């Protein structure tokens, strides 16, 4: 049985941990509001972009000569996976959920005998993946310096992906991120961005024909690289909202658990204090009796 002094120290330490988790929860809540707002504000852009591309690709008559970013290389030998995680920990299952999703995808690809290449965005993902798939990671990008997700960063990742595609380093590109549903629920997503998977998106193309200036091909070949960056940016926004949401609920749980622990320890402390008093009393009384 721990001594009274030990118990006192433990209670104090749990209490100060509780203070930290509580503060982290509040910070996360404030950041979440911002991140959620920017995720919502960013949606029109990617939706519009998607619409335009759908309209364009349905207008293309010559599928054979369509840009490769749209139709693919015709192979599916080399897979590139962009795994997007956070740079900070203490956010519950946020990172492990993405990694789990990614790992099951990796093993599926490898069991089919295909080649795998990984780009990690965010240092936590890199930490978790480098033990098992260290030789497959070709690039590790981290945006520790930037406070919020911004388009400039997304564009950087997009350019790397497109460069690699143009050098024919891979055939299919998939990005992994957490989609923000609400504070408690984040859904890990695997989204194929090259070649563009038009079956995913809702069918809202109109029958109306557009006039194009310059011609479709040229617009498409300009638009598609932009779309890659846009999709990555969208993933980054969703991710940052998810990260804060996940951290908030994780810290909320931690605060509650710490509270329960303090209660339990306090009861234990009081009991052993009473036991010590009773013991002393018995000693005094029996001492007096024997006189």
């Amino acid at each position, binding site marked *: 049985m721990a001594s009274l002094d030990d118990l006192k120290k433990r209670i104090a330490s749990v209490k100060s941990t509780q203070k930290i988790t509580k503060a982290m929860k509040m910070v996360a809540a404030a950041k979440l509001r911002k991140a959620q707002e*920017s995720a919502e*504000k*960013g949606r*029109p*852009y*990617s939706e*519009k*972009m998607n*619409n*335009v591309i759908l*309209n*364009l690709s349905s207008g293309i008559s010559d599928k054979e000569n369509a840009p490769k970013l749209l139709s693919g290389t015709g192979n599916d030998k080399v897979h590139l996976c962009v795994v997007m995680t956070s740079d900070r920990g203490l956010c519950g299952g946020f990172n492990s959920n993405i990694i789990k999703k990614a790992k099951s995808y990796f093993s599926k690809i490898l069991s089919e005998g295909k080649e795998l290449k990984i780009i990690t965005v965010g240092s936590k993902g890199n930490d978790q993946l480098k033990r098992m798939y260290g030789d497959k990671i070709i690039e590790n990008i981290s945006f520790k310096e930037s406070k919020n997700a*911004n*388009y400039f960063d*997304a*564009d950087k990742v997009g350019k790397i992906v497109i460069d690699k595609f143009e050098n024919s380093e891979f055939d299919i590109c998939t990005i992994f991120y957490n989609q923000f549903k609400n504070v408690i629920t984040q859904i890990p997503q695997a989204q194929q961005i090259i070649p563009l998977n038009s079956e995913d998106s809702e069918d809202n193309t*109109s029958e*109306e*024909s*557009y*006039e*194009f*200036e*310059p011609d479709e091909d040229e*617009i498409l070949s*300009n*638009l598609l690289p*932009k779309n890659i960056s*846009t999709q990555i*940016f969208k993933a980054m926004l969703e991710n940052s909202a998810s990260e804060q949401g996940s951290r908030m609920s994780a810290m909320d749980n931690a605060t509650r658990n710490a509270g329960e622990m303090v209660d339990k320890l306090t009861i234990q402390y009081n009991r052993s204090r009473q036991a010590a008093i009773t013991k002393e009393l018995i000693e005094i009384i029996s001492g007096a009796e024997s006189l």
Partner: protein
Amino acid sequence: MSEEFKIEIVNPEKSFLVKDDVSEVVVPAYEGEMGILKDHISIISFLKPGIIKILSKSGDESYYIEDGIVEFKNNNLSILTSSIFNIADIDKFKQQDLLKQAEEESGKEEISDQSRYLIDQKIEVLKTLN
């Protein structure tokens, strides 16, 4: 019959501008400036660096953009751009700053003809701003 239509400008971060009393918009399309009035045919085009002029009942506005896509359909004009500035907000410093950036970029050796064309455009437009 009103002669007005709706315009929406979005950048990746947010919906930048929404107006529904626009009478004419002039955009710097890739193959030359293009004026859009109500009931224009559906069109998709992309933009080169230049100035968007928006004429509306509530006042005229001008924006400087560096790239973008324009889509017009059913009297809805959407412009997607990643860099847009209100001309009124661009002061001398900002303009010099952008100009310097563009000039630096054009100094690079290994850029394609197309991007060189775009950068030259950018420099030209920036010079006319003040």
